[in-house]
């Protein structure tokens, strides 16, 4: 016959006590009696997977890969922005909540403010990249006999980037400086963010500076002054040593 019992549903359900007999607003989350609990609860990040661009067109992707590889150029010690996955990172970010500014206050009227009044542009990052990369493409083809940014030499690329950064280059229909700063910020984000987001591949950014990553316990190290921390970096989704071989 049956095994005696399963202790009905376990503590697995939310431990909400039975409630007040009075009217309870149905659309509120009520917490009373005990701390809520659900198994496997939480909102961990989703691993970015390699694959086709989710936001960029092929041309935009090629341009951004070329840009990030000059902002963070490869050298014998550390890969550059492209191999570190910075363009993939930016692509996935633009395809998500960051790209469309859905969390920000984007109500009109939009007015130009003073420099200390914070960003006032109605452009979301997605729009800025789309417009900015199109304008950049137009500029490059004009200035370099029909070549897009990705096909310029390294010196030419650096020249263009400096021009955007410092002002001499104006883009048609987009802010040159705005675009440059945006891409630079996102590139550095991608280089140093957790690899789960598609950049900092193999934790190369962290290895470059010596940041041990998503570690959480340094108690044994607080008072070891001026000593090198020996463990390799680890990301939210792990490191090679987690695999048994």
């Amino acid at each position, binding site marked *: 016959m049956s095994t005696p019992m399963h202790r009905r549903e376990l503590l697995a359900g939310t431990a909400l006590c039975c409630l*007040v007999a009075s*009217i309870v607003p149905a*659309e*509120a*989350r*009520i*917490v*009373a*009696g*005990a*701390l*809520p*609990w*659900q198994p496997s*609860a*939480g*909102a*961990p990040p989703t691993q970015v997977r390699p694959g086709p661009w989710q936001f960029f067109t092929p041309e935009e992707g090629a341009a951004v890969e070329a840009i990030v590889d000059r*902002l*963070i*150029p490869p050298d014998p*010690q*550390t890969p550059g922005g492209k191999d570190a996955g910075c363009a993939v990172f930016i692509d996935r970010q633009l395809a998500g909540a960051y790209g469309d*500014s859905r*969390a*920000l*206050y*984007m109500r009109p009227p939009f*007015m130009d403010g*003073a*420099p*200390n*009044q*914070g960003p*006032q542009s109605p452009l979301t990052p997605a729009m800025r990249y789309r417009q900015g990369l199109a304008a950049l493409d137009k500029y490059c083809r004009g200035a370099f006999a029909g070549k897009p940014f990705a096909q310029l030499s390294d010196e030419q690329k650096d020249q263009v*980037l400096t021009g955007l*950064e410092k002002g001499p280059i104006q883009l048609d229909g987009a802010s040159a400086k705005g675009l440059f700063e945006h891409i630079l910020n996102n*590139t*550095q*984000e991608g280089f*140093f963010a*957790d690899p789960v987001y598609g950049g900092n591949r193999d934790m190369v950014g962290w290895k*470059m*500076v*010596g*940041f041990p990553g*998503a*570690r*959480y*316990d*340094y*108690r044994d*190290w*607080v*008072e070891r*002054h*001026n*000593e090198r*921390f020996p463990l390799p970096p680890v990301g*939210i989704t792990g490191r090679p040593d987690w695999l048994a071989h």
Partner: protein
Amino acid sequence: MTRMLPSTDVVIIGLGWTGSILAHELTSAGMNVVAIERGPWRDTATDFPPTYAQDELRYHIRHDLFLRPAQQTFTFRTNTNQTALPIRTWGSFMPPNGVGGGGVHWNAETWRFLPSDFRLRSHLTERYGRKLLPDDMTIQDWGVTYDDLEPYYDKFEYLCGTSGKAGNIKGAKQAGGNPYEGPRSRDYPTPPQKQPYAPTLFAKAARERGYQPFPQPSGNLSEAYTNPLGVTLGPCTYCGFCEWFGCGNYSKASPQTTILPALVRRANFTARTECEVVRIELDKSGKRATGVTYVDSSGKEWMQPAELVLLCAFQLFNVHLLLISGIGKRYDPQSGQGVIGRNYSYQVTSSVDAYFDDKNFNPFVASGAIGMCIDDFNGDNFDHGPHGFVGGGYMGAVQTNGRPILGTRVPKGTPAWGAEWKKAAAKNYLSSYSSATHGSCYSYRDAFLDLDPTYTDRHGRKLLRITFDFHDNELKMSQYLTERLGEIVQQMGPHTLEKKPRKGPYNIGQYQTTHTCGGAVMGSNPKTSALNRYLQSWDVPNLFVMGATAFPQNAGYNPTGTVGALAYWAADAIVNQYLKNPGALVQS
């Protein structure tokens, strides 16, 4: 159509630090308490577990734990000649959201204000006459003294298990602590945290220059601790994901780790989350709050009647609700009349960056409030006579994090990108260090809060408008503090030193602190304060307003210790005076 709910004894708006403290004290007194929180329930293992809390991009850069500006924001202008524009994305400060409020993602720097801070105008006038006080400076005495609040500072620190070393116990100076602090009745509940390399070098240099360094008081605990509510916290593990982040291992003092586990068990406590209070309701006389109206996550409106209303939201939201609800006389900067919105202040911080050749600071071994500090230049701890400004702040080597996206530091003049940048970033990450000053911000006639004429939130309510800039007094102070800090850091032996004093104009886009203060300040005079000394509204006696909203000006310290003490002080008055005899506790 607004639906009416059954009445309750107490309704609390916002379930952060002050909401949790008040809920606990009042349920202990037998009151039925309903707390209404705009954001979600937050729990350590579910919402900031050490399996994914350590994510700089998500939490520090994309602001995942904070209120979304799309849900509520403010407008900002430097002065009345400017048109205020919305804060479309957070910069200067980070408004909290959700149960636990700012207590979830603070650094846990837990300071007390100085005795002189509480009677600031009297004290400065006594010492310096009126010469150092600009005419448009509106600093005030608080209406309470440090001695009044001492037992409640103690209560908050023992709730949190604060780690530190006392500098003054009942008047007797203690070696190793802050020699300038007001007398405390006993030592901290747990000893100071261990210090990493740079703070020890800083302390040595500070001592060599004749100052008296001490460990910063910290709500990230040095050891496991069980507080008087029976709730247990664990030891901080120096993970370096403190401010901006929730703590994954129960070692940062927060409502979650100190109060909520005991509070939720009580039959007379209920929390409703994802409900936004849109208005405090008043009766026809305008002198009595009847409850609050709130909107749930489906957009339905409810009215929660209550005998006592406690406004416990973040400072800016408190003032916003008072203005929207028509409570108290609105401040008019032209006439100087009115109190709601008056005496808005902030914090004046600065830093000194230093680059070394031969040192490895392991910046990632960090905690929100470790560090060695000096208080020699705080408050009125030094003679301001020669200097032409008032105010001051603590300064120190505070090692909160080494997160690389924002913490990769290169010396001035290094290109912002390219091979040079890359080399400099690699070279300097472990061997550079940033120290800070944390200065006071006094209040002025032209720094205030009111309602914006143009921009609205999703409910159609006008946004709160912030009018604020740094005054010469504060900029002079910052310059002075930064110079003194620079001297100490120079003593540590860097090859390059960069002093970065605070410069005007106030930039709403650059993070400084979330220490916005004032707007409905406490005091003895209803003409210049919105609240009496018990944080009770002068206009509506069954309404109390918590938080840094009550600060008539800000001192040179992080505010949360004082916010906690005031909450306990107010709770005591409510339980032992108000409930026994509801009505105004102070005759105006």
